[in-house]
């Protein structure tokens, strides 16, 4: 087995909350989380609001610091790096956000948006090469290269999420962190974006940390999954293990609450059972 690309060990993040009268208490948003993600795989973190999954994503992106614990990417401990070294390292990990409307600057052209992470590169191409790189990045996510000259408002939600993915991929990162990246999209568009992400993983050996609240999406995209509850990773395993044979009560509760079309058969059975009884009155 190769060493994991991303390895998180005993990660904890406390926030101090100021209450009434200056009293402070501590909120443990992430509580002793450890996980490892193999290169070229998709690891999903699933949980409900407030479980700490977005805090975890922000720390992996080095947008926030852990209270204790380590995050290693390709062997480097992100929080032991000097600021300069961390800045240089950022080309290796990029993020796709939930809201395709809020995450793209409406006053910048799509080309400028997609090219933004190139500032992390010392050897970023200029001039014609840069334009060609932007066009290729857009084509890779299924948009025409000519989209570079247009502005975000000219695109639908699904197209904007493609733009956000093109931006995340332009530095050829090893890891992409996607935080609820398909949650704001209509189902048909959601399916297209999931297929796009899987295609990119297959073509480029991309590693993805996929944060979501949706078990249906986990099933579609992930190789492994971790279930988070109140800051803790309560269950981790392959998608088949966790979704088909959950060990934790909380995982079972999540699975049972998920609305699926299987409910049609249950409703019919219930109506059938109720039928003969009702006629006895």
């Amino acid at each position, binding site marked *: 087995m190769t060493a994991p690309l991303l390895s998180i060990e005993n990660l904890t993040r406390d926030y101090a909350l100021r209450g009434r009268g200056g009293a402070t208490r501590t909120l443990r948003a992430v509580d002793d989380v450890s996980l490892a993600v193999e290169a070229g795989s998709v690891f999903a973190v699933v949980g409900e609001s407030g479980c700490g999954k977005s805090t975890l994503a922000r720390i992996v992106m080095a947008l926030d610091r852990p209270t204790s614990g380590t995050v290693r990417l390709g062997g480097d401990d992100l929080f032991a790096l000097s600021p300069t070294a961390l800045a240089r390292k950022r080309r290796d990990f990029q993020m796709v956000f939930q809201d395709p409307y809020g995450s793209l600057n409406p006053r910048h052209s799509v080309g400028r948006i997609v090219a933004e992470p190139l500032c992390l590169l010392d050897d970023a191409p200029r001039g014609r090469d840069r334009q060609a790189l932007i066009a290729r990045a857009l084509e890779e996510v299924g948009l025409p290269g000519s989209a570079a000259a247009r502005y975000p408002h000219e695109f639908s939600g699904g197209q904007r999420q493609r733009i956000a993915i093109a931006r995340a991929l332009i530095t050829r990162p090893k890891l992409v962190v996607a935080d609820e990246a398909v949650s704001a999209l209509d189902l048909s568009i959601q399916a297209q974006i999931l297929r796009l992400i899987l295609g990119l993983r297959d073509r480029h050996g991309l590693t993805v940390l996929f944060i979501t609240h949706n078990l249906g999406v986990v099933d579609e995209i992930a190789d492994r999954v971790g279930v988070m509850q109140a800051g803790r990773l309560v269950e981790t395993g392959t998608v088949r293990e966790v979704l088909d044979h959950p060990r934790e009560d909380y995982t079972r509760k999540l699975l049972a609450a998920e609305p*699926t079309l299987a409910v049609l058969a249950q409703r019919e059975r219930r109506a059938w059972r109720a039928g003969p009884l009702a006629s006895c009155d």
Partner: protein
Amino acid sequence: MLAIRNLSIAFPGAAGPVRVVDDVSVEVGRGESLGIVGESGSGKSMLSLAAIGLLPRTARTSGEILLEGQDILRMGERALCGLRGRRIGMIFQEPMTALNPAMTAGQQIAEGIRLHRRVGRAEARAEALRLLDRVRIPDPARRIDSYPHEMSGGQRQRVGIAIALALEPDLLIADEPTTALDVTVQKEILDILDELVADLGLSLILISHDLGVIARSTDRTLVLCRGRAVEQGATAAVLRHPTAQYTRDLIAALPRRARAGLGEGPPLAAGGGAR
């Protein structure tokens, strides 16, 4: 209970009127739940706003919306005020924005009661408490004096339902009532709506983009696509044996897990479309 006949809704646009709802006819009976499903821009929210006389002023309508024979589209503002809340209750998607942040849960529930009925403050408060209990808010005696920001999303939506129930309407319209909520909370809220239909005999129009939600909580379903009714019928029939290609595409776009257990019906792969 409510009959929508040949309803069209259009807005003035730069290049002539834009039709957001196009010749839609649908009915919901007493004690029946109707699901309206469609993707963003399908016109499902406009349809529900029209049913409660809340369309933006610039909207142009044709057709009719009959509530026990009376056409809502031709009612004056006064008549509409008598109808909103009392005959038709509305539950919105975002309980944080739908509630008044400066009023407690109890005040907001009692406000409607006292506007429409001649009851004292104490009596309205007692009624509000009863309603909070009905929507199974934990610790209602304490929650009645809570402000929206002190409550979770699920609790806020329970307050939203209590407000809608305060005037004992015959019809509830719920526009994506659980979209902003966690799945476990969503289940609890849908359980309450199911109960209201089953126990109180309310009619329910449930608008959702989620076929799983439609499948569990509605008797009949209307599928909207760009303002047009592409299909309607018994929910089980529409989902098991969709006749419109658009419905098949919607089902095919569901994650495998959500589709699993659909039972009989056409092979989904044959639906083609988005997947």
